[in-house]
């Protein structure tokens, strides 16, 4: 099973992922409707995309009183059944990342569903800060990059 792998060091802060997500999911150009949001410290030029990590022990599912939040048994992805959401916002406070967001106009919460296995943010990310890959491969590729840095010094 693949995961959304975030490499914050690579992120340039262009926010393409955020807009692409909003446009794909909501058909509108509104950055806050992106399931992923990029946070920036302009003074130091640092940026980090923040998005649901599909927790194994998902607090949002646990607190949801209506089972609007559930885990897709096939893909293991945490999803929202919008018609079931009553807008109690318990999940919003339970999520440690702020990855579940309540949208007043919609009267429901929104969150990343990994675009059913083809995340659009990854397609738009020009730097490789967002990748969709096997967890083991992800850690190994990070380690390889470390190794490459060491080779440079050697």
């Amino acid at each position, binding site marked *: 099973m693949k995961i959304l792998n975030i490499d914050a060091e*690579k992120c*340039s*802060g*262009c*926010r*393409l992922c955020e*807009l*692409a997500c*909003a*446009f794909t999911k909501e*058909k*509108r*150009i*509104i*950055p*806050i*409707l992106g399931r992923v949001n990029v*946070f*920036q*410290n*302009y*003074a130091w*030029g*640092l*940026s980090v995309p923040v998005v649901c990590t599909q927790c194994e022990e998902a607090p949002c599912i646990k607190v949801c009183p209506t089972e609007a939040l559930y885990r897709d048994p096939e893909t293991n992805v945490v999803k929202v059944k919008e018609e079931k959401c009553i807008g109690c916002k318990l999940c919003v406070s339970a999520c440690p990342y702020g990855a579940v967001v309540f949208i007043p106009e919609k009267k429901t919460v929104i969150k990343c569903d990994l675009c059913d296995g083809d995340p659009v943010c990854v397609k*738009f990310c*020009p*730097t490789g800060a967002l990748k969709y890959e096997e967890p083991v491969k992800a850690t190994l590729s990070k380690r390889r990059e470390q190794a490459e840095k060491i080779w440079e010094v050697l």
Partner: protein
Amino acid sequence: MADGYAGKYLRVDLTKEKFTILPTPEEWKRKYLGGVGMGAKIMWDEVPPEVKPLSPQNRIIFATGPVNGTLFPPSGRYEVISRSPLTGWWAHASAGGFFGPEMKYAGYDLIIIQGKAKKPVYLHIDNDLIELKSARHLWGKNVIETTDRIMEDLKDPDVKVAAIGQAGENLVRYSCIMSDYFRAAGRTGLGAVLGSKNLKAIAIRGTKGIKIANKEKFNKLLEDAFRRHSPEGRYWEYIESFRKYGTFSLTDWENAIGRLPTKNHWTGYFENAEETIGMEPMRKRHYKRHASCFGCGIQCKYSSVVKEGKYAGTESEGPEYETVEGFTSNFLSTDTSALIRANYLCNIYGMDTISVSHSISWAYESYEHGLLTKEDTDGRELIWGEDGMDDVIELLEEIPFRKTKFASLLAEGSREAARRTGKGSEAYAIHVNGLEASGQDGRPHKSLGLTYAINVRGADHLTSLSSLDELGYKEEIKRRYKKETVNILADRWDEKLKGYLVADMEELYALCDSALLCKYGVMWPPIYYHQDFGKIISAITGFTEYEDPKNLSKLAKRICHLRRCFNVRLGWSKKNDALHPRFTEEPMPTGPAKGQVVHLEPMLREYYQVRKYDWKTGYPTKKELEEVGLEDVAKELKKRKKLVPVYRGKKAFQIRK
């Protein structure tokens, strides 16, 4: 109703402390699109020639365009439009970063500022909330301090801030507006306009959205646009290099054609530049991290740091190519640590790196020729090379505060400094119509000579520069222009047909600066052309008429004419379409373009044919203005006797396919 726009614009009268929010008129959208186009319309209507640049009646307009803030890359910019305190003419400057899109998300296509606040203030906008807040505690602070403090005051680390530094407060004629800390609306001295109005900053936050007229079309164009920014695109090699090195990869490319201004534009070749100040040494010595503007597929931004020596620890975003040239080869210096320091100082005090470096190098060359002495320079010996860089750095600390008479003289810009100094020092003030020449030279790149001469804001590289002949994009020339013109157009030393080429670029960039995309992607490398703008404007706004090249060309011409007419009303005429003698009379002394000069006249003739300007006076023609929908403008110019009834010159030759 057109989509793609925020839909409203904000007018702030600082004298009356009054805000007016009105729907952005349909006529402005359809006829002027946005950015510099709308800016030109407002400047023409509201700023008559009597209004001096630093008077409260002058306007300063922050403008976005329909493409801004959409997903279409690179759409993170905004334009600032006014009348320039440096040149006295039309002024526009643009910055990337995040401020522009945020304006749209807050709900404003434009912010028009007029009047003068009694005391220093800053403007705070949070969607529908608009307030003027005291900036007493910010006055005297640099750009970083100001931005940090505003974020603290508002308790909002995501607020986007455009601010002036001390240079703007002290009316340094080339002070700029800095947004998101390091992005400069650099040229023409717009920081001083804000300073004269006592407006220290604009802080903006928005959470609204933008509607797209034709989503399906937009989606298709998007896919195509991102493909062009990928390894499948034609220009991947350039994009990759911008991503890896930033825009200073241009240093190597320019030196290779003998067009890297060196020693105050004396020559265009800096020996060994590739090994000393080129992209490899710069990256190796100073590269810190990669960054980007909003919604960009190129991503040329990065920050640099000085790792050792007396400036160790100095860190700032950039430097851009123009700044590299300004603070290295321009002073015959290979000291890249001094360069990073200079860039940092310009950023925090808010000064245009191009104008300040070339104003200082005016002094260096004047000193070399004995026109300035130690008495004029506060006891300094102004010498070229690495050893002279200490004085450059010191001056950068003094100019923003006008600390001494000499610093204050330099703060006026090179044209005025030379005028006051006299003794022939004008020969070393390398400006055109008051704006210091940027990191280009017309001698190795003839069309650039014309670019400098006819630009509405003087010697800059962003209003009509052709990169096609410059960097030899021959395949692109083949795609765009008629077969028989290709070899001539591609020859950067041949003046022939370049008047038509520059006019075409001017129109293309007028669209770019009004729809509002970044020039990278249109110029270096030339990814988009007219038809791309027609399509994207149509998909976003629903103005389908712009898919017809005739209508699109009319729109572009309208914007070009209107800006020029603004200048004509101020007194611009044929004699202003000229160059500094350095480019026309002093053959290039060294480098690959040795011996070359610019022959302006043949190019100017062609350019006049396209614009249908009168060859004797440089004035526009009534019929042409009416044809592009500027009837009122024609009427007013006629009253002022600055209009020619019929065009009697030759017909322009069509180079486009």
